[in-house]
């Protein structure tokens, strides 16, 4: 009887050997979520998807420069399951469940909208699935609770807002009045809230003329522009993105808003080339970090921007950079976990342990996962003003701000950090 048992055990062990070999090399299924339709698709979702396609293809072929020259994730090929982010938070939660429970993806990388991220984070935790947010900016995600399975490889809106306030101080130190026009949901509210607080710290006594909060995708801004013009604010802050940003530029330009006040467009980089003729000199442009025109002159950036432009005919915008950054961060964490696991395919928990507090490089330079108990990235940022040179849009007066100067320390809420006078 014992002999039979041994025989069965040996047969089972033999059968498991090829199965383990397959598991080691089996493709890693990754859900990639980005806007493929709706107003955010053209300026954000599609460039991000394009970046994902390039990165998946090049990483699988082992063609990415060092330190990412190895094939796939620890040798296993990445396989993409692409999902459209449009349709609202409820739809996204359903799609996320489908990815995890029906398609059995190993991890999910995605989400541009802060609304999507706020909706997905608790579901990722409930389903215990590693999820990497690549773009959404609201700081609330890791401020309101801790997550084990959720990571974000881009900085929060706090970085954009504090960076913008520091730039205003440099550009217009005598500014006395500010105004804002931001979309009425998590991203717009948080962006304006942080900017207003930061301005009050940096230029004490500065007044707020008006804060406009139109609905997301409203499209018509005549009345808001009138109010901003009437306010005679020295500086106008806007975190508008997607088609709203473009409509705002198209409607505000002919009404002279850009001439009357210094306008800061914290996501303006996504529109600055397409609408170059409509954006006059002197508009402050942000790129949500050191991306696009603010990206460093390193080998990884040269390779990424050249590969992207060769294939799609346009330079990558910040959404594309952030997608590439999330994928490279995942690769760095996966391979660190695999190395710690003796070269064997790591478990999800091992990847998570490796991802926490990871420092990795991307085309935008160094990314440190130091906030949100090691789940939230911080990066430096940069701002500059538009300047046409020979009819081409360029950025002038660039100022760079290191990560620690524009991000709160770990465990400190953005608003508290700003109110404390940016104390470390």
């Amino acid at each position, binding site marked *: 009887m014992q002999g039979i048992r041994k025989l069965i055990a040996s047969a089972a062990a033999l059968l498991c050997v090829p199965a383990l070999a397959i598991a080691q090399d089996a493709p890693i299924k990754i859900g990639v979520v980005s806007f493929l*339709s709706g107003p955010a*698709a*053209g300026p954000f*979702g599609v460039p991000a998807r394009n970046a994902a396609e390039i990165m998946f293809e090049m990483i699988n072929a082992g063609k990415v420069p060092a330190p990412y020259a190895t094939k796939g994730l620890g040798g296993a090929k990445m396989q993409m399951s692409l999902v459209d982010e449009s349709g609202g938070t409820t739809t996204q939660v359903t799609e996320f469940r489908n990815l995890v429970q029906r398609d059995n993806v190993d991890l999910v990388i995605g989400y541009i909208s802060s609304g999507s991220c706020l909706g997905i984070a608790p579901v990722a935790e409930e389903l215990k699935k590693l999820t990497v947010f690549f773009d959404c900016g609201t700081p609330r995600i890791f401020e309101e609770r801790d997550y084990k399975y959720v990571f974000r490889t881009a900085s929060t809106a706090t970085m954009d807002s504090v960076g913008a306030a520091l730039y205003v101080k440099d550009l217009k130190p005598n500014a006395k009045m500010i105004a804002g026009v931001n979309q009425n949901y998590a991203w717009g509210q948080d962006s304006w809230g942080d900017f207003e607080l930061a301005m009050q710290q940096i230029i004490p006594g500065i007044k707020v003329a008006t*804060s*406009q909060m*139109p609905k997301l995708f409203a*499209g018509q801004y*005549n009345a808001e522009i009138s109010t901003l013009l009437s306010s005679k604010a020295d500086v106008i802050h806007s975190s508008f993105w*997607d088609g709203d940003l473009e409509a705002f530029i198209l409607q505000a330009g002919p009404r002279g808003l850009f001439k009357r006040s210094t306008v800061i467009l914290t996501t303006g980089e996504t529109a600055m080339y397409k609408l170059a003729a409509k954006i006059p000199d002197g508009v402050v442009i942000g790129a949500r970090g050191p991306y696009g025109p603010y990206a460093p002159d390193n080998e990884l950036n040269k390779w990424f921007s050249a590969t992207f432009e060769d294939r799609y005919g346009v330079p990558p915008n910040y959404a594309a950079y952030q997608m590439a950054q999330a994928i490279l961060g995942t690769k760095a964490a996966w391979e660190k976990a695999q190395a710690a696991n003796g070269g064997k395919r790591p478990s999800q928990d091992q990847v998570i342990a490796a991802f926490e507090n990871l420092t990795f490089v991307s085309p935008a330079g160094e990314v440190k996962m130091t906030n949100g108990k090691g789940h939230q990235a911080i990066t430096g940022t940069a701002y500059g003003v538009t300047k046409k040179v020979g009819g081409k849009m360029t950025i002038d007066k660039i100022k760079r701000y290191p990560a620690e100067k524009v991000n709160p320390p770990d465990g400190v809420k953005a608003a508290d950090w700003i109110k404390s006078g940016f104390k470390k």
Partner: protein
Amino acid sequence: MQELVAVVIDGIIYSAWLFIAAVGLTLIYGVMKIINVTHGSFYALGAYAAASITGALLAHGMPPMLSYAVLLGSALLVAIVVGPLIERGILRFMYVKDEVVILLITYALFLILEDVIKLIWGVDPYYISEPYGLLGSFDVADLTYPTYNLILVGVAIVCGAGLAWTLTKTRTGKLLVAVIHDTEVSRAMGINVDRFYVVTFTFGSLLAAIGGAFTAPTVSVVPGLGVEVIVLSFAVVVIGGLGSLPGAALGAVIVGLVRSATIHYLPQAELFVIYFVMAMVLAFRPRGLFSIAEARKI
């Protein structure tokens, strides 16, 4: 005082845009008793056709001043091609069904047309901003407004007045009013109701497409453009009373002025003010401000 002037001007401009977008919806409901969700698709199709055709012609050296005629022509093209196709090809088989079923069918068509738009134009934004700045600007109360906004107001007035004149002063309009009041009796009296249906649907679609075409120069034309419009248009026609032309005009003016005043004086309330107005109107006048009394059939 200066701010009040700005409130009125901004309100009128927004009302004009809303009225152009919504009036076709109320016309189609009035005649065909269809809550037509594809109205948003016609708005988007008008915007896309206007942006791509005008852009192409300007690139081939068309005098910029002709672009206004091309905007109108693009809307006409969309309405004439797509309107009868949908009405004759799909909707006419559905008239016997319940209003809710037809509403769902038009919603399904709206989703299909959204995908058709993506298939034809992709997801990249289209811009045709030349007509917006071409006519210069004018200053009121220390504020600059593009003269193009006056064109929007003019288009709204022409659409409204033209429709009112057609309905009250022409034989066709009077026949249409008969169809609005009672389809069965109209048929019995020899009116070709089917023809009125296709013409009404096409004309209603044309109004939506004009709304989209004349909005295109002020926005980036992107997928999903029709979604926001259909929601606002419903709010306007519900406030005014479904099927009522003066109701749509008054609804647009109320919404435009209230929204403008809110933005100037209480911006934090902008998000819900339109729907607050709608809720208040419906609380006291459940069928809208200009609801038409219906005779009870025995």
